[in-house]
């Protein structure tokens, strides 16, 4: 369902990028602090759905031109893939590779873990499920 309010339409231009950025931040932060793929995905999906409310279904489709099913597939595939790779290296399932690298222009080392890819997969699944459900329900309303 679309709400034709100019206030919402215009403020979405600000809300959408900030929310998407915050979603990514919440996802990445989750490795050590509260946050993670699930909550990041929820925030991401909320942003997309709000955009659908303000700009309509077509605009949302242009913003996210994939079927939610594909997102679920990619997310689950990514999560499963990252968990299976350690098996090939003789490590237990879900084992995470960790390390640090230096970003240019930063003295602070950046800690990474391959579990981040798993989290990204979770995020994709949650976005897929969230957007898919809302789309399905609002299509029925429309």
């Amino acid at each position, binding site marked *: 369902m679309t709400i034709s309010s100019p206030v919402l339409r215009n403020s979405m231009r600000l809300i959408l990028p900030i929310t998407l950025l915050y979603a990514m931040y919440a996802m990445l932060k989750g490795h050590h602090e509260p946050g993670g793929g699930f909550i990041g995905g929820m925030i991401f999906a909320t942003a997309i759905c709000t955009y659908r409310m303000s700009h309509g279904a077509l605009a949302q489709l242009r913003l996210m031109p994939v079927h939610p*099913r*594909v997102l*679920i*597939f990619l997310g*689950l*595939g990514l999560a*499963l893939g990252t*968990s*299976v790779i350690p*098996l*090939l290296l*003789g*490590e*237990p*399932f*879900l*084992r*995470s590779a960790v390390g640090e690298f230096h970003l240019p222009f930063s003295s602070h080392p950046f800690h990474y873990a391959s579990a981040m890819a798993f989290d990204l997969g979770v995020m994709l699944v949650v976005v897929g499920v969230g957007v898919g459900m809302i789309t399905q329900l609002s299509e029925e309303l429309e």
Partner: protein
Amino acid sequence: MKLENLIILFVAIPMGTGVIGVLLKQRVQIARVLGVLSFLATSALAVGLLVHLRSHPTGILVSQMGAWPAPFGISVVFDSLSGLLLAASSLVALGCYVHSFSTVEPTAEKRYFHALVQLLMFGVNLAFLTGDLFNLFVSFEIMLMASYCLLTFGGTRLQMTQAYKYVLLNLIGSTVFVIGAGLVYGMTGTLNFADLALFVAERQAQGRALPPGFAALSIALLLVFGLKGAIFPLWFWLPDTYYTCNVSIAGLFAGMLTKVGIYAIARTFPMIFAHGGSDAAKIVMPILAISAAFTMFLGVLGAVSHHNIRRILAVHVISQVGYMVFGLALMTQIALAGCLFYMIQHMVVKSCLFLCCGIIERHTGTDDLDRSGGLLRRDWYLALVFFIAAMSLVGLPPLSGFFGKLVIVREGWDTRWWLSIFGLLTGALTLLSMLKIWSYCFWSPQAAAIERTPENLPNRGSLRPAYAGATLLVLVALFLGFGAQPVYEIAFRAGRQLADPDEYIVAVLGPGALDEVAKYRATSAQLAAGRAAEVTP
């Protein structure tokens, strides 16, 4: 590659196939091939590991997820109990899945049917493998989610009504389960089965009582597992649910879903919640015994009273679950082994009967006994398969059911003779109900009065997968009968490890885990010896 790491493939293969199945929504043929390959792979892996582990000292393989050490991380354990169940469930899934090619509606097939079957088995396999209570809950949920969808594929009014009941009941069950898991964690500080067993063993060795409320917790979890396993008096959801869905799916459910509940009892109660002689055991054991008697006997009475093949078979599931609960209620090594053997043979045989029922329905267009007949002459092969499966269920000596019942009934004779008598009576009534189907459907001379519509016209070509699925399962059933010896060797080891979880604890938690307990045991043995020495002079 280390063998331990491989056991997670039981979970990863169906999950991966299910994920690919989501994308292959329209490509039915590819999805079918992939699905068959997935079940073949898990069956081969399970059988291979079981054979390989026969010479292993404990027969337990443990993989710690992400290499996090045992009580903190997630342990995945493949022991004799899980191994036998995984092998049986993968083979049953293969049979039912192949059978479904000729019974499932094309519309349903394009609505994630293949993905859902894989995800159902993902949940079931995870339940058999997992080493902690919370992941058992998670796997139950995965399995139930898939089963909700599979139940409502037709979208008919009747299906929705039954599925509504089923979903509601299972939601209540899951809520109690997760509350129970939370309380277990609060009481003991761990959810890992091995760690819980260690907690109980430690308390017992020290002669201290378990925390107050532990018995109540056992009862709450028994309620949850009993609801999934359809034991008395929590069975009411089962007959209608299996009656309304697709017949191959009904076969799969009849094989899997109740057994997962029984497995959960078998895994947690002898080791933890009702471990030898604790207060909880004193309450749980009589409940299990009474429940077993009612489940066996009332279930089979229900089966005798029905007049539809599918209803008879569905109600029969309950009665057979009673035998397993009987084995659990005795909780000795041998009885637990018998219970395990009965579980796997029942999975195979009951699913096979459902698959036969599917073929019968296609032949006659109905599963009403009055309106079908003369099938023996029309399809002798189906009659043969059905007869073998039915007699295995009844427990005619060289067939699989006999060996299951023999061990349980004999073991029960000394301590709970009344249960054994109920068991034997139930066996006789089972024979009666199976003969009822046999004589009405196959033996009765009059040809079935069928309205021949294009849908129910039997077509050998389209039924070929159905015959293949049923044949596979009947062969497995025959193997379980004639090859009962090697299977029982593994089952006895499983029973021993359940009744005395020391090997399991050491395998999961590491070699030093039992040191503390051993010290206490040695001291109390010394004390006992000292006391005995004081008494004798």
